[in-house]
């Protein structure tokens, strides 16, 4: 065995291979093989056969993809994710960052508040669905506050809204922690300098906190997209199998219905791959928007900086993120 010289991390050693091998095998069996298998199945007329029986599974090209794309429920489910994101992302970013910024300033009861926000995140979806089912039921508490009763869970306009609110509420604590880690890294001196310059709390938040945690925001929106694309239990149980006419149908639920319940694994696998492409597309579009926003912000910051320099004073916008 190679004796390590001076620093452990600098030398190549075969031991590393032994230590990592079980994990590498696991990744291959549970991830690599199914992904390759998924692409293969999506191109076959795959039929579930009784164990031991051999059935022909002819190659049928892109027929499964054509069938998947012509399914109006697939389009509906993609639109539903976009609706989910339109509610979930702004709420998550706004509430998550504000709560984290405030939490970072607290001197007392920090642990209490952090736990309070995190508890919904560790609670099982099924348990959370149980309460929301109760809260939003026809005679539920929400309908005692909100009149007239819009039949939340069976209303084709509201089914997805309730799901988006439920998931946002459940996940928020996790995002608060991500933001909190980012906010705590911002040096106090930035805020001190800003307040000497006369910037108020809101201005400090916009000029220092928001740009400083930009990377966290990118992470949060990406994770929100993945969570949104994976929603399964809520449409199945909260809105009774995807809502009226697929109003809250999610891609994961549709893949399950096609691939397992209706015995068309080829179409289900094709939908899985289409959904992955869709997620990558939305993530790419999101990055492009973020990049454009950042650029225009930077330009605005430069202009403000120049104007301030002409006046002979510094502004908080000059502070680098």
């Amino acid at each position, binding site marked *: *065995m190679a004796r*390590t010289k001076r620093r*452990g*991390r600098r*030398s*190549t*050693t*075969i*031991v*590393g*291979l032994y*230590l*990592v091998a*079980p*994990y*590498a095998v*696991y*990744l291959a069996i549970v*991830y*690599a093989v*199914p*992904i390759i298998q998924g692409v293969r199945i999506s191109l076959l007329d795959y039929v579930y056969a009784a164990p031991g029986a051999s059935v022909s599974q002819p190659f049928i090209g892109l027929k499964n993809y054509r069938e998947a794309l012509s399914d109006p429920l697939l389009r509906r489910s993609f639109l539903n994710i976009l609706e989910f994101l339109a509610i979930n992302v702004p709420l998550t970013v706004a509430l998550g960052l504000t*709560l984290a910024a405030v*939490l970072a300033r*607290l001197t007392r009861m920090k*642990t*209490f508040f952090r*736990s*309070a*926000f995190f*508890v919904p995140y*560790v*609670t*099982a*979806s*099924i*348990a*959370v669905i*149980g*309460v929301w089912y*109760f*809260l939003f039921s026809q005679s539920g*508490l929400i309908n*005692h506050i909100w009149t007239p009763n819009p039949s939340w869970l069976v209303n084709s306009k509201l089914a997805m809204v309730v799901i988006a609110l439920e998931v946002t*509420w459940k996940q928020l604590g996790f995002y608060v922690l991500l933001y909190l880690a980012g906010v705590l890294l911002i040096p106090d001196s930035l805020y001190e300098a800003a307040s000497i310059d006369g910037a108020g*709390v809101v201005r400090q938040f916009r000029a220092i906190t928001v740009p400083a945690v930009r990377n966290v925001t990118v992470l949060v929106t990406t994770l929100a997209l*993945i969570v949104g694309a*994976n929603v399964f*239990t809520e449409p199945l*149980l909260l809105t009774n199998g995807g809502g009226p006419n697929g109003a809250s149908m999610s891609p*994961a639920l549709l*893949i399950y219905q096609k*691939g*397992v319940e209706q015995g068309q*694994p080829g179409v289900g*696998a094709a939908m*899985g791959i289409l*959904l*992955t492409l869709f*997620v990558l597309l939305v993530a790419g579009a999101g990055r492009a928007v973020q990049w454009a926003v950042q650029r225009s912000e930077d330009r605005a910051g430069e202009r403000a900086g120049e104007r301030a320099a002409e006046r002979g004073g510094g502004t908080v916008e000059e502070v680098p993120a």
Partner: protein
Amino acid sequence: MSRILKRLTTYGFVMLGALASIFPLYYMVVGSFQLRTDSAFSGLIPHPGNLGLANYRDINKAIPLLRALSNSAVFTLGTVVLTIVIGLPAGYALARLRFPGKATVSAGLILVLVLPFQVMMIPLYILVVRDYGLADSYLGMILPFAVNATAVLIFRQFFVSLPDELFDAAHIDGASELRTLILVAAPLTKPAIITASVITFIGPWNEFLWPFLITKKHDMQPLAVALGEYVSNNAAKAANPYGVILAGSCVLAVPVIALFLIAQRHFTSAAPGSGVKE
């Protein structure tokens, strides 16, 4: 004056957020003990005349809770043990050793974290249920969760953060990499193991989709699956459907919340470095 006002607004704001965060869980507990469902405002406060364990008795009749809880426990603990046994050495190797294929495994680890599960759902179902014949088995449940990627990442970050001096000392003393891992690094990893275990625990305990796909026998279903099926199939038949569902929800939620609150104070003390004298 403005200082106090600022303080008050700050605490008022987080207090409001915390209440919104906790309220549904409080409501879950209160509702689970109500003998008659009271969904009006009066139901927000428990009334002694309307409290009892009937809902818990009913959910236990519909879903044998002990059986369901032990299925959840085997599924969850199996995942936690495998994550530590396989993930800890992998995290160590990825953090501190150089070996062929390291970049590939590192890339795989990150990829797994962002991969949407649906792309795998059908092929994994076919592989586990049809090819491996693992339907209605603990192994089949555990397999896709066996090594939690976030936990491996936590282990890797932890070993990266350990000071080099610690390892140099061991190497100078002539310890091999394996001995260094077992004698020097492993004893320091307690905080990382606690954090990784809690994070890993949450996943399978709360998971619905995968065990729902592969367990058709009721006596193999974890509690989350059994409760989910109860919600969609049988709840309407119960005398007090909401109360029974909420009782099941409490049984499912309480162990994880308790574990989280107990383990929580260890999370912050995950700072290593106590093994090195400055």
